[in-house]
């Protein structure tokens, strides 16, 4: 997996300010984060772009707006679903899970019945 990394040096903003680091897990794998940064930023710095598979068609999704408007980055944290990775600061030991395909029993029923309306 490719790591994009951080912008350590910036000609105007200066060097990346020092920060405490913490660890969290994403789908069971350990990642490092800078204390207080968002889950989305920590994962992207660690090379993770895909935060979930679309609930119905399974297409991969990642951050889109990065400021909480689009809901594309929703993940599950400690059993709570629909948490926005771009707005949620990482905490030590956090258990973050990606979203995945969910059953679509009603659609399946409709297809089985060859209902033209769905």
């Amino acid at each position, binding site marked *: 997996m490719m790591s*994009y990394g951080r912008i350590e040096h910036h000609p105007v*903003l200066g060097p990346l300010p020092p920060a405490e680091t913490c660890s969290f897990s994403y789908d069971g794998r350990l990642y490092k984060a800078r204390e207080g940064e968002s889950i989305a930023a920590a994962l*992207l*710095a660690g090379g993770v772009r*895909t935060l979930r598979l679309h609930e119905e068609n399974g297409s991969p*999704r990642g951050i889109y*707006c990065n*400021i909480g408007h689009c809901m594309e980055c929703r993940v599950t944290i400690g059993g709570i679903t629909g948490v926005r990775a771009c*707005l949620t600061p990482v905490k030590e030991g956090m258990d973050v899970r990606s979203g995945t395909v969910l059953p679509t029993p009603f659609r399946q029923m409709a297809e089985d019945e060859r209902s033209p309306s769905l």
Partner: protein
Amino acid sequence: MNTFYDLIVVGAGPAGLAAACSAAQAGLKVLLLDEFMKPGGRLLGQLHQEPGGAWWNGIREAELLVLGARNAGAHIQTGVSVTGLNRTSDNSWTIWTNQGCYHAPFVLLATGAAESANPLPGWTLPGVMSIGAAQVMTNVQRVRVGNRGVVIGMSVLAMAIVSELRLAGINLAAIVLPPGNALSGNASDPEAVLGSLLRFADLAPSAMLKYGAKLLQSSMLRKLALTFFPKQGIRMLDVPLQLRRCAIEIVGRDAVEGVLIADVTARGEPIAGSERIVEADFVCIAGGLYPLAELAAVAGCPFRYVPELGGHVPVHGENMQTPLPGLYVAGNITGVESAKVAIAQGTVAGLSIAINAAAKKAPGEAEVKDAMAQVKRTRSEALIQFHPDIARSRAKLYQTEIV
């Protein structure tokens, strides 16, 4: 949760922070809520050079505003999402959040703006993001968004962020037009795009655009220029600005691998057979901004559609008051403009709320008038006029609405 506040400000961007400061200085008890982890709003991501050469560093500007608001006594709470508000029978507002309810007689909505998208096939792939997302990731979070990007959409906001990405050492393969479709409107018309870019020609880092701008004031010459516009584009900030190419589709299996682009005619129609793939691992979609005003709608505030201000805006007067008792608006929710205008509007809102709330140290009407004049002055001095007719459309809005 039961603490009593005189004023709850929703959104800790430039408008909300300035309003919280001026209202708290007048003696009001102010609570400022924001769902991002840091106060500052979209101001945090801004980084550009002013005409005199000084840097406008959004992070520092935000820190100053936060300090001002805190010193004045305002409480700032981040990580709180406001989901609704309603007026209660005791002449007060209830604010619903993901962390419980708050109550106050006065509410200021300073929710800012959101980015509109130019959707195209493949835009849901990981690695595709709004250009503002890339700005925040780069300047605020200091994380590289990728190794080689393509920007789809050209506007002055896009150009400002392109220069910020370049400053941080992020490589961009090209800036191309969005595909023409029902949603793209003028954004995929080379002549309209060139016209809008030329309005900011004084800011253009490319000498050709800068000195060619005067020449290109006439539509006929613009058409001629487009006819001869090199297909590979003009390099701006070391990135080819390709006014004669558009994106057709973003391609990739599990994430962005490239963008299918095509040459377009001077009128923006793709030329068959000219399609090819530009390799990239990230894509920024630059679609422009619109006022983020859902909460005003939830509150029951009437709206007007004002294209010059970026879309539907809550009805309000020059003192930032809406027709609903105790409800005020300030900043980009009232129309898309610069952060400096938002700060000036926030000050107006804070002062006029203080007067209406009969605050201990409420300002006089003259002070509010001065603050309103400051908004106009800031607007006329703004480096970037998001739309040429902002001042006129605002005057019209304030004249016709009796608030």
